[in-house]
């Protein structure tokens, strides 16, 4: 198992945002986490990414407990999270964003040799690799023609795709996507759908949260439904979507 989450709990004062959540993620699959607003989806993802520290429970990544590891180290382990509201570096162009996101690649490639690159500059070979990789990822995320534009000038959908592209350049084994489809138009969602399917063929495991059931229904192999911070259903996406408790959580008792 790639990621194993056991009895994860997070309390903020008197509020229990995530309560006793357990699930696992296997290599190569697409996992969907959904639930109505306030059900603890984003908190769960932030706990996995190290942005929040769990009150209780454990997060085991490839056999190693990472529940109290800071975000940058989680990213080094190969788990990268994107943000629900696109996070950007103001003033910088799309290509410069991607270049910053290459940090881990440079670190892995050069190790302590990076210190020498202070004097002699970056090895040309590595520079070439990075440029090719950035181009490839921008192509994949349909941002190739925007590479020299200021990221702040992108459309909302473009900013979200840039988040995915930056996450991918970190070479994650597991990419955690926080509501990638929220706020996107129909065409942009179809585009995102295609991009995420492309990513899977590149061997990346995806964990996607969303409250748009339709989008996840098409994409996810397995799903977990959360409500009030607790798991109410888990299994094949179609089964979870048909689950009575899930329908009730979304639409209320009357429609169940």
């Amino acid at each position, binding site marked *: 198992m790639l990621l194993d989450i056991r009895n994860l709990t997070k309390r903020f004062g008197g509020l229990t945002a995530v309560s006793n959540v357990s699930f696992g993620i296997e290599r190569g699959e697409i996992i969907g986490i959904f639930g109505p607003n306030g059900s603890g989806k984003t908190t769960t993802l932030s706990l996995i990414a190290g942005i929040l520290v769990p009150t209780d429970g454990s997060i085991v990544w490839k056999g190693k407990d990472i529940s109290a590891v800071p975000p940058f180290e989680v990213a080094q382990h190969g788990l990268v999270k994107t943000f629900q509201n696109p996070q950007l570096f103001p003033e910088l162009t799309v290509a410069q964003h991607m270049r910053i996101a290459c940090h881990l690649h440079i670190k892995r490639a050069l190790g302590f040799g990076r210190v020498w*690159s202070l004097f002699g500059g970056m090895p040309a070979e590595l520079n070439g690799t990075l440029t090719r990789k950035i181009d490839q990822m921008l192509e994949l995320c349909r941002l190739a023609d925007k590479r020299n534009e200021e990221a702040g000038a992108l459309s909302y959908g473009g900013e979200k795709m840039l988040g995915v592209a930056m996450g991918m350049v970190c070479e994650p084994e597991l990419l955690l996507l926080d509501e990638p489809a929220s706020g996107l138009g129909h065409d942009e969602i179809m585009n995102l759908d295609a991009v995420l399917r492309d990513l899977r063929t590149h061997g990346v495991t995806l964990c996607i949260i969303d409250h748009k059931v339709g989008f996840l229904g098409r994409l996810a192999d397995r799903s977990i439904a959360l409500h009030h911070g607790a798991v109410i259903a888990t299994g094949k996406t179609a089964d979870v979507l048909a689950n009575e408790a899930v329908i009730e959580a979304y639409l209320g008792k009357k429609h169940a």
Partner: protein
Amino acid sequence: MRYAIAIGLLAALLAPLIAHSDSVLAIAIYAFMAASLAVSFNLIFGFTGQLSMFHAASFGVSAYIVTILVTTFGWNFWLAIAPALAVVLILSLIVGTICFRFKLKEFYFAVVTMAFSEVLRLIILNWNGMTNGSLGITVVDRPSLWTPIGNVAISGGVAWYYLTLALLVVVYVVCHGVLSSWIGRCLAAIRLNDQLGETLGIDVFKYKLLSFAIGSVLAGLVGAFYGFYSGFVEPHYLSIPLGLDIIAMVLLGGVGSLIGPVIGAFVLTALPHVIELSAELRIALYGSILVFVILVMPKGIVGLIGSKRNAA
């Protein structure tokens, strides 16, 4: 820009051939040292986004250590620089670790670094036996340089002119090297959005500390030379007003640029000599410039030149 800097450096190298006047050379020497302080400060402030009030302290502590080692203990000037920089490095790592571990940002970081800097000033002010308290120490020794014809004392305007110009070049080249490497990109990420940087695998704490330590040690390097040119060291070297002068130079020249602080340092060092002003009026002028720059030209003189060029 590259050509402008090359021409500026060439002009600076040739200037003493034309300007023999001691007062002109003195202004240039003080401006070179102020510019070195401003460039190294801008690494922490303009490029990493951390408003350090510790810069004057790094400068002053190093000035005191070198002076005391040379005048009281009879060390060689060049040898004395190493322990001075080591102390500044350790101090900056301690202060930086405390501030960045507690994730102090902006105003809070400024206040806490200011407090540490005041502590050091008060120690120096009250450690009469070693530092001579508020009177400071008069420096009569001159550093000498080893040459094939024997040791030559560095004295006189022209020698100090080239020495401090070299100092500025060293500080500038180090900052340029750091900023154009992968470190520079990490610092930009921290300045613009540290949360995003952290999720991309950047160790925000480590790179903040690195930037703070490099900037502070460079300020210490300037401090090592300063007292030997001015002829004295005093507790004022560690004061908040000196820190504010450095900020004014950076803001005036251009926060986000390497060359901006050099321009700002020259303008603010030369200005009081060009227009005769009393100390009180000078501070008032500095303050007005600061307010004017923040309101009208947030990117400083360099930004103004850049936008003119873009408009043309």
